């Protein structure tokens, strides 16, 4: 086996994991599988692409690469703003759609269907604005450095891995060590009871959208930096995201990232041993296996 599989799998897995955190939080706190979550990844990447082009045009030198990476500080700034914009987009979709169903106390599956419609609309809107031609943050080529053990990675890839680790630790601390995190866990247990005990449920829901969308944007920017930016990039990640969230156990942030890494490694293995064209089938195989063997997931509680 080529040890490069490990690096390829970890990189794909960290993008899936970051996306899956948002999905799993919405799933456990708002209690529905959000089919529009993939679009937050794509919209985040496009926001960052437009902003970084804008920053580059206004301030010369913002696009100049910071050695050894292929991107300049302009993209870093653009990503931070894009995370905010993606969060606003998620809040807007919630305000015009999901919140209304919530207030009506609609059955969950109607909300799932609405998220399905929203994903279609958001994705096609991207295609309308940017066309389906792929976009790139940078045209710089990078040479993969040897890491030992027969593995290689570009500086950008290592940056993505490091940033993922940082974001995951941040979210984990936020959820386990702060009052906001405690409120989130309380709402996930029982929304009406936690509301009775003085938890601001609306604020918790806003936090979930902001956090999930910002992480999705980060995943989108990484995917755009390492692969390319397409309107369908989020939709194509949706099945791996669901597989990761269910594999890790719905509601579990460490589960989502571990699940993401497993799905990513599985995809890398499939590329090496079965053929790249079957890559997209791995998430489905993992999903079926986990539903057969342990439907609550690795870190999930008994439902």
């Amino acid at each position, binding site marked *: 086996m080529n040890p490069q599989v490990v690096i390829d799998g970890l990189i794909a897995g960290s993008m899936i994991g970051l996306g899956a955190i948002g999905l799993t939080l919405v799933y456990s706190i708002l209690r*529905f*599988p959000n*089919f529009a979550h993939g679009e937050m990844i794509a919209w985040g990447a496009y926001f960052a692409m437009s902003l970084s082009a804008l920053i580059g045009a206004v301030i010369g030198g913002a696009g100049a690469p910071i050695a050894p990476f292929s991107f300049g500080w302009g993209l870093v700034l653009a990503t931070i703003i894009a995370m905010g914009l993606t969060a606003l987009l998620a809040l807007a979709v919630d305000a015009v*759609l999901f919140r*209304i*169903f919530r207030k009506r106390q609609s*059955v*969950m*599956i*109607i909300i*799932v*269907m*609405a998220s*399905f*419609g*929203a*994903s*279609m*609309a*958001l*994705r*096609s*809107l991207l*295609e*309308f604005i940017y*066309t*389906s031609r792929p976009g790139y943050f940078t045209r710089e080529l990078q040479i993969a450095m040897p890491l030992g053990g027969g593995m290689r990675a570009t500086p950008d890839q290592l940056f993505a891995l490091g940033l993922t680790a940082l974001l995951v630790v941040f979210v984990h601390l936020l959820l386990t060590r702060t009052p906001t995190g405690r409120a989130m866990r309380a709402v996930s247990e029982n929304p009406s009871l936690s509301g009775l005990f003085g938890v601001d449920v609306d604020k918790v829901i806003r936090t979930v959208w902001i956090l999930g969308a910002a992480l999705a944007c980060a995943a989108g920017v990484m995917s755009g930096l390492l692969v390319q930016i397409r309107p369908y990039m989020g*939709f194509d990640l*949706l*099945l791996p995201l*669901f*597989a990761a969230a*269910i594999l890790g156990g719905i509601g579990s942030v460490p589960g989502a990232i571990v699940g993401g890494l497993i799905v990513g490694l599985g995809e890398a293995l499939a590329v090496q041993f079965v*053929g790249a*064209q*079957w890559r*997209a*089938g791995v*998430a*489905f195989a993992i*999903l*079926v296996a986990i*539903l*057969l063997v342990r*439907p609550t997931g690795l870190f999930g509680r008994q*439902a």
Partner: protein
Amino acid sequence: MSPEFLAYGAFFLTMALTYAIICLGLNVQWGQTGLFNVGIAAFVAIGAYASAILTTPDAAGRIGGFGLPIAVGWVGGAALSALLAFLVGWLTIRLRADYLAITTFGVSVSVQLVALNLVGLTGGPFGITFIPRPFGDLAGNALAFGLANLALVAAVVLVTYLILERLVRSPWGRVLRAIREDEIAAQALGKSPKWLRIQAFTLGGAIMGLAGAIQAHFIGFIAPENYLPMITFQVWAMLIVGGSGNNRGAILGAILVWALWALSGQLIEATFPAGSQARAASLRLVLIGVALCAILLVRPQGILREVRTLSRHALGRKQPEVSS
């Protein structure tokens, strides 16, 4: 009216009616039973491919090509799609309703992948051509061919509709709706929700597979790009517009949405230059997505609302009408 126009009308209506069959299948799953299927494209594709492989003449480099009659293809397509629906249902329905949605989504991705990559069986990206068409010997006369096919598909819609109406009013249909409305109450009366749901999901899958087979034979060729997730969106829009839970609504919605779809397609072709047509087409998808959400928000019952059905024995006793 010119014969060309009539022939086009027949073609249009036949396509719309094949969607009406898919929609009737979805109505069994969603309208009657409340099962959310995000993989309609997969079940339609399975039916189409199975039937195409059974009925096409022998082709070099591809397994299959059995050259069987079209009717055998229809039955085979429906049966294979039913089998897939049964397996998916068995895997997920015992768990949670939302897992069914996620799994059917995965099925649609995987079926698309198989259609694209299992070249030896499906013909890969180029698909399968020379699928025998019903009334193929009439093909010289566009009008006669179109009308004959329209009559055939209309007959299938009618038969499916009558069977489903009968089922809706049968004890089986009433138990399904009882489970949809209050699972625990139905369980307390000794009904097995899991098993009945799997039955309904399988029946719906069979109908979708049949529709896929009919569509494949009507058009004469199939390719993976015919079965993108867009089909799933279209059929959902049809059922929600027409009125879920109502079989007549399912047929009406299919014809209406297909008409809007075809007309907007013509409008785009006529008004936009060739370069920006792909762009305009994506705007059309935005509208479908927004329309789906808007109907769910504003008029979730659709144009024709669900008809309240009671057992004829209960009706005979003149029970007090309960508002639904």
